[in-house]
């Protein structure tokens, strides 16, 4: 079973978010980056499990500049066999999906994994676009998968419950919590990652269709008030007079 896992780089979850250029550009000064957790913890690890069970190869792909190599190396350290980086800035979902689909056509992938969304832009668009561009099925928000031959039985998180679906390979799957359990890269994996192939391929020059005009931050929350646990009367007064919730 050959898998392609789409990975992206996102700001660390507690990074301070600010913008410049009239609030149209994300200000990266002082921001630490990580691999998008849904890609790393669930999509990549499930692909590795599938390889361990059924054989085959796991390739990771990222669309972005050389500064993304650090997260790609991490995916290799966790266990991916090889990596591809499409050498261009990622500008919108359509452009990224087209680049990935174009690469996917050159290989023989049974499954294309990605996280259910990135934790920065929360677009959740890529999976559907890749599937559409490749004309294959798309299963979103998968929290469990069993594979038997070329048939996969998948549980999807839906509002208030779970849907169980069946699909034949090849297909695209977006990974939600539960699909796998996070693995951390061990010493051996980290040292081997440097020797695994990371192929840099030129972009196929797809143009983005959407551009960001402005970001708006939510209103600042007012400060936290600590109330002494012995002073319940004060808490009741604050809840009724200031917060006006009782």
């Amino acid at each position, binding site marked *: 079973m050959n898998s392609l896992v789409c990975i992206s780089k996102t700001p*660390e*979850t*507690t990074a*301070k978010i600010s913008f410049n250029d009239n609030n149209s550009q994300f200000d*990266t*000064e*002082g*921001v*630490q*980056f*990580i691999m998008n957790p849904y890609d790393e913890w669930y999509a990549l690890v499930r692909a590795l499990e599938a390889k361990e069970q059924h054989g085959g190869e796991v390739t990771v792909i990222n669309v972005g500049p050389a500064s993304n190599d*650090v997260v790609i*190396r*991490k995916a290799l*350290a966790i266990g991916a066999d090889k990596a591809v980086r499409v050498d261009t800035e990622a500008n919108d979902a359509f452009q990224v999906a087209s680049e990935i689909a174009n690469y996917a056509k050159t290989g023989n992938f049974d499954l294309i994994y990605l996280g259910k969304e990135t934790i920065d832009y929360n677009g959740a668009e890529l999976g559907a676009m890749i599937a559409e561009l490749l004309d294959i099925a798309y299963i979103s928000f998968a929290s469990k998968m069993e594979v038997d031959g070329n048939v996969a039985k998948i549980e999807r998180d839906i509002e208030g419950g779970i849907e169980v679906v069946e699909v034949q390979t090849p297909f695209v799957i977006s990974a939600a919590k539960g699909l796998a359990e*996070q693995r*951390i*890269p*061990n*010493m*051996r994996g*980290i*040292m081997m*990652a*440097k020797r695994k192939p990371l192929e840099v391929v030129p972009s196929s020059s797809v143009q983005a269709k959407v551009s960001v005009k402005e970001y708006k931050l939510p209103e600042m929350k007012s*400060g*936290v*008030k*600590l109330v002494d646990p012995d002073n319940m009367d004060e808490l009741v007064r604050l809840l009724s007079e200031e917060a006006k919730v009782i």
Partner: protein
Amino acid sequence: MPNIFSSIENIRFNIFELHKIQDILNSEYYQDHDEESLDMVLSSVMDVAEKDMYPVFREMDEKPAYYEDGKVIIHPAVDKMLKIATDNGWLGSHFDYDDGGSRVPMMLSGAASYIMACANNNVGGYIGLTAGAANLIITFGTQELKDLYVPKMLSGDWTGTMALTEPQAGSSLSDITTKAIPQEDGSYKIVGQKIFISGGDGPNVDNIIHLTLARIEGAPAGTKGISLFVVPKNRISADGSLEDNDVITAGDFQKMGQKGYSTVHLSYGEKNNCHGWMVGVENRGLAHMFQMMNGARLDVGLTAAGVATAAYYHSLQYAKERPQGRKLSKDGTKDVSQQQTTIINHPDVRRMLLLQKSVIEGAFSLITECYKLEDQERILEGEAKEEAHLLLELLTPMAKTYPAEMGQVAITNGLQIYGGYGFCTEFPLQQYYRDIRIMSLYEGTTGIQSLDLLGRKVTMQNGRAMQILTQRISETMAASASYDDLKPYAAKLQAKLEMVQEVMTYLLPFAMKGDYEKYLADASIFMQMASNIVIAWQWLKMGVAAKEILLTKSKVGLASSFYESKIETMKYYYKYELPKVDACKEILTNPEDVTLSKSAEANILFS
């Protein structure tokens, strides 16, 4: 700040920018590593620290290790962590490939241990002692001992301890009486009592390997008659199975802190059936053990820094959230119609926060400096190697003692920031306050470390290590000369260095006359003075690095405010901490004998 117990940013700054691990990685020995892959190790350790270690920190205090039916029961998190550490190849990662390691630089494995200590100081000891014990066997043991023990220890199937202390022999190891009686098969029968043995029982493993100091029958008295032995809890029979080796867990010690880290009384050979195997050379046991002790001393300093680091970040968060009081207006009054301000805006609270920050970041920098020296000792040759060795020898007692002693001061200030809540068990500061207290006791008390510093390290090779240190400090001062606003701090440091010279000029003649009691009487004050200056050196170094990066670019992607804060904290240190050197100098050069035995008998002094 991603979590409340540590700062990965500060660790990255230390490893990659300040102490420049790249210098080490350029060598052939470490060529298989690069900064990117080592940073990945740090992130992995931080992940585990956040998910598996910090969440059980309070619980390990509330449910301490205890003794029942001849064994010690500990929190199951220890077994889980041992498994994680071994599965991921962290245990012994700094060993050479042939010994089952990955040649990870000590700078990096030290930083990994620091992260664990910040998250939960009850756990790292089990891992560190196992690695230290395995390393002793690797360095001094026969191939047969290595093959029998090391792989099982690195896989986490067995753990290790260091067993030195006896009821009558704590600081004074020359008084060890545990006996080793030679047997025909080349082993020794071991009989004796060891107390206070950390990790001596508890982990859910098949075997615990006690690296034990004992005296072979007929050996000379004192430290020259001590040998080192591998004494397993279960010995390995010819067919490879394990059989009981007559090492009994006689009890445990209930403690004020580090309650999740077991402390055990071991009784060897009660049935005259305890066997040990000698490691290294007969009667050289204490010298061999010093390899593990020096490593453990840095570990203790690192752990103390970690505990104080966690306390600092907790108190910082509290200070940002706790509204209390109001800022003074220009006429010195307070306007009660205004909302209360958060306490971080009161200068006295800021002073307490900066005190903590200056101590923990100064301490971590010094320890990282030491680990770099250890790495350099491995890769350098000739005089450079010797210099690294001597400087490490000199700095080790300070790198153990400063974090242990000043970490306590830092934490008591963190607790103060919590006000009355700091005193309450519901809040975490009291646990850090109790946990750190052991750091200035075990692995050589502060008194013993100070004797080592002034009595041995300062004077060795005619003061050569001190000369090397002075040279390194001068290099930092020279680098600071490129920045006008750092020059005054370099000048202050220079003045304090000259005070050390004055103190030595006063003290050394006593040693030369053979009046060692007088020479060493105030060794602990000398320790305070010397380590204060060494930390000031680290702060100037951080100031220079911060200035440099502010003019260029952060290699590890940190915001400019991070570097500005370094410079402000350096200023704090030079204003509030460094002046204490003057008081030390005054004490050390005051000719009045108050504590010396010749001045008054104890019964007169304390009647």
